[in-house]
């Protein structure tokens, strides 16, 4: 199970805006990859392509070693948008089983499978609540469980914690890394939070401003299991500096010491 997107270009209608210019990404099976870039670097476009919602105008996509068209990714790649988009008329439990339901799994069976994970996702006791009754963090966890349960080969997270306050976000990152270290799903995370990108990922891709291309692919050198206090350690800060430099926000570490 493996996606290798080679040189994806995309043009929006009419204006001919070049959103992505020759983008190479690679996500190995069971790997956690972050994509980070300035606003308007075509991250959303990239994600829509990876989710199968849009066709690339050039370049190729590979999933599981074989070339696929954008449309073929629809239903094979799990997608979690920035907003939780839980259905307010469904209970939390029934929201999380949507993917299984669509796949034709019987409701009772789907619920049974979901309930097994409720503790891991910190949702125990909230099975029969409606989304409106939950906090933002819990709703995001429920949304993530919905994506997880859909059982896709690759999961795309589009700034999943962007709408949360920074403390809640830190808690969620800590929690997500724990869940991921246990379940080892293939995840692509899109974010513009440098700490988040670095803390969670095995590899971080830094994109340039539009038209987006990869300016840095950083193999993250941090031990696992990770704990949040990692972000104040020397190796973390050093790699963060490197990322910031490639985002044009800091002087590269090598040039800093003069």
């Amino acid at each position, binding site marked *: 199970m493996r996606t290798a997107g080679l040189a994806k270009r995309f043009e929006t209608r009419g204006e001919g805006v070049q959103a992505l210019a020759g983008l190479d990404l690679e996500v190995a099976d069971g790997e956690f990859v972050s994509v980070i870039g300035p606003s308007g670097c075509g991250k959303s476009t990239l994600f829509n392509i990876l989710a*199968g919602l849009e066709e690339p105008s050039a370049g190729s996509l590979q999933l599981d070693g074989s070339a696929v068209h954008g449309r073929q990714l*629809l*239903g094979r790649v799990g997608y979690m948008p920035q907003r939780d*988009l839980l259905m307010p*008329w469904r209970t939390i439990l029934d929201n999380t089983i949507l993917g299984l339901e669509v796949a034709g799994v019987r409701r009772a069976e789907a619920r049974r499978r979901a309930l097994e994970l409720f503790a891991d996702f910190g949702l125990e006791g909230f099975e029969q609540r409606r989304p*409106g009754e939950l906090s933002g963090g819990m709703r995001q966890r429920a949304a993530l469980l919905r994506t997880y349960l859909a059982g896709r080969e690759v999961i795309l997270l589009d700034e999943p914690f962007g709408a949360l306050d920074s403390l809640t976000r830190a808690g969620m990152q800590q929690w997500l890394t724990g869940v991921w270290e246990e379940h080892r799903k293939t995840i692509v995370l899109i974010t513009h939070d440098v700490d988040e990108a670095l803390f969670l990922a095995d590899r971080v891709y830094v994109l340039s401003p539009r038209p987006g291309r990869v300016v840095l692919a950083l193999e993250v050198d941090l031990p696992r299991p990770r704990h949040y206090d990692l972000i104040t350690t020397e190796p973390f800060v050093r790699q963060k500096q490197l990322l910031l430099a490639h985002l044009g926000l800091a002087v590269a570490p090598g040039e800093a010491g003069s």
Partner: protein
Amino acid sequence: MAARRVLPAAVFSLLVVGGWQLYTVVSGISPLLLPSPWEVARSVVDNAGLFADNAVVTLQEILIGFALGAAAGAALGVLLTYSLLAERAVYPWLVASQMVPIVAVAPILVVWFGFTIVPKVVVVALVCFFPVVVNTVDGLKAVDPEMVRLMRTLGMSRPRVMRSVRIPSALPYIFSGLKVAMALSVIGAVFGEWVGASEGLGYLMLALNNQLATVDLFAAVLVLSLMGIALFFLVGVVERLVIPWHHETRRGGRE
């Protein structure tokens, strides 16, 4: 809690009715022109049987017409959202149909269907239909496009998206349409009876008016109003039962 919600309405009603009663007593105005609330209330009690019999007739017209109009309206709303072609073809006709005055249509209906229940039901259905279609279409279109995209990535087909996403999220809109429709349907039924009927509250009001039985006319209006209010609130009760989450979110939003 309940008292706090009901109290303002109760006090205000009492003031209005009290003021009205006071005015009729003090001014000595003829009951033929403006009967006092007390006289109206007594007429309702004295003629309870008559009013009840006629109210049942009108209620039937309203409920059947409302059910038909609302069902047709909701169904057409779904169809119009599903097919852009259908929307382009039908929507202008839909709007135009509302510009044809019911006043002009009703007599023709009586010519076609006679002094039966049918013309009244048709009039009620016609007035109910439009607000339901418009609100259904608006509701189905107002669904979060991101939600639809997400469901597509989950592998949902378009019909499934309509059933599992669009329709549930449109229900609050549809109920708004149903409330407007219910309020209009009472007027529709009375109007249908005015054009040609031998029973029903609207017919009764016309007959009482001709006899200058002003007190009883006011009583008939009161009965009709109470029925209309009850029906309106009934839609609200059904709404809360069908879409409890909507009410919860709204309440949450006010805190």
